[in-house]
């Protein structure tokens, strides 16, 4: 009996160890969850700025519209390579409020890039870009080969 009692002691003593382990697990959980929840709320921390894009087409052109509010024209880069359109640029921090206290800072500052593969071959030398009310519109004329054609079928 006394042996058994002596044996029990370490078992009872081990419970707080388990407790501590559970605490540790909780701690680790918190450690990972808390910042992740924070990240999830502001996904930009993980992925940067992915300006929203719309792509349209008519029979002659492909149009790409991107929301890029508050940019300077010279800070927007549009390039076309192998029928892949890339819109990139950088929004610089404006330091005209240097001595100001910041209450909210939700607007993104830094570099961004979006790349899309165009559905049609386009004439790279005739691409036009326009930037108005914070929206960049890139007009890409389709090549003659990519345009839909009416084929006259003659029946004999």
């Amino acid at each position, binding site marked *: 009996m006394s042996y058994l009692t002596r044996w029990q002691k370490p078992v009872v003593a081990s419970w707080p160890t388990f407790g501590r382990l559970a605490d540790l697990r909780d701690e680790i959980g918190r450690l990972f969850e808390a910042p992740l929840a924070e990240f999830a709320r502001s996904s930009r921390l993980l992925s940067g700025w992915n300006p*929203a894009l*719309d792509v349209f*087409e008519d029979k002659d052109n492909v149009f790409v519209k991107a929301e*890029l509010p508050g940019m300077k024209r010279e800070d927007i880069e549009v390039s076309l390579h192998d029928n892949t359109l890339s819109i990139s640029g950088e929004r610089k921090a404006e330091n005209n409020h240097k*001595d*100001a206290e*910041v*209450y909210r800072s*939700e*607007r993104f500052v830094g570099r961004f890039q979006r790349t899309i593969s165009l559905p049609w071959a386009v004439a790279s030398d005739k691409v036009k870009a326009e930037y108005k009310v914070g929206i960049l519109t890139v007009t890409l004329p389709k090549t003659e080969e990519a345009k839909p054609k009416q084929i006259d079928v003659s029946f004999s």
Partner: protein
Amino acid sequence: MPATVQKENQHETNHATTHEYVTPEVNIFETKDGYILEAEMPGVGKDGLEITLDNNELTIAGHRSSETVPGEPLFRERRLSDYRRVFELDPAIDSAKISAKMDQGVLTLTLPKSEKVKPRKITVD
């Protein structure tokens, strides 16, 4: 006539409940002279902007200028709802002196503090 008004009001409320808005992202700074609020509203021109002040509640709303949709959509990510966000103003703001500027889809509001709350240096004779 009252019937028309009632009908219109009802229409208004229906409209309001079904309306979805995009919350513009903002930066707010405080300087010694007042506050500066910048809000991102791409697609909104000067005429699409609606700024209302009701007591201490400032509402900024932006209606996207009737953007022409060029052809058939292939891929869409942009949300085309109007923008709306409400702010509570510091009572120190002189609401008569609020000014607004719109540039490339970014609204900048300057909200000056009234003279009497600005920090002043008092010289001792």
